[in-house]
């Protein structure tokens, strides 16, 4: 079982998504929560980086945090999957361990 990483910072303000992308292994899963969901939007300066990351890693975003900030599934990059809190719980249960990039 691979590892689950969570990130909760906007990548436009803090570096933790970058840290997570460079320090996670291929085949691992990254879940964007809280302000980090803003990094999933289309047309941003980090969109290419995420698209590249998606070729080797699974990227998810917490839907309720996206909605809370005024966005929906239609606004995010293709290939990023949306989960609700139940899906968050399942991701934690399915992966061998979890690391929160704070």
């Amino acid at each position, binding site marked *: 079982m691979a590892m689950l990483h969570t990130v909760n910072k906007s990548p436009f303000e803090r570096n933790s998504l970058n840290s997570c992308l460079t320090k996670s292994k291929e085949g*691992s899963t990254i879940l964007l929560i809280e302000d980090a969901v803003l990094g999933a939007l289309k047309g941003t300066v980090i969109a290419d980086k995420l698209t590249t990351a998606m070729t080797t890693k699974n990227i998810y975003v917490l839907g309720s945090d996206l909605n809370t900030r005024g966005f929906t599934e239609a606004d995010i990059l293709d290939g990023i999957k949306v989960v609700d809190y139940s899906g968050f719980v399942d991701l934690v249960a399915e992966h061998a361990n979890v*690391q929160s990039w704070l």
Partner: protein
Amino acid sequence: MSDDIKKFMFVNTKAPYGTVYALESLEVVLISAAFDQDVSLAFCDDGVFQITKNQNTEGSGMKNFSPAYKALGDYDINKLYVEKESLEERGLTLDNLMDLTYEDEDDDWAEKPSIKLVTRAELADLMDQQDVVISS
């Protein structure tokens, strides 16, 4: 599962003093030593600044907690992984870090370095092998 020894890794990513995370994380680490688990520490990103030499807090009035890292060896915590790329990005080398050592019980108490320089890829592998990762 509860009888097995688990692998705990404390991942330090933040600089000390600006926020309390480094100090309070070290407090957890010292307590974790009492539970006879397989404990290691990682220092990456700004976390490498936690163990720099010559910290002097006289002017800021804060408590200088850097000497406590030198006690980790006494607590049998002697796996301190420092990420090479994080050091380089910040213009640092191992010479900027404190000399952190432990005495090897199985080798006639020889003093050995606790710090191990690892690449980003090696650190990713180490994290992947843990049961519990507590980062701050």
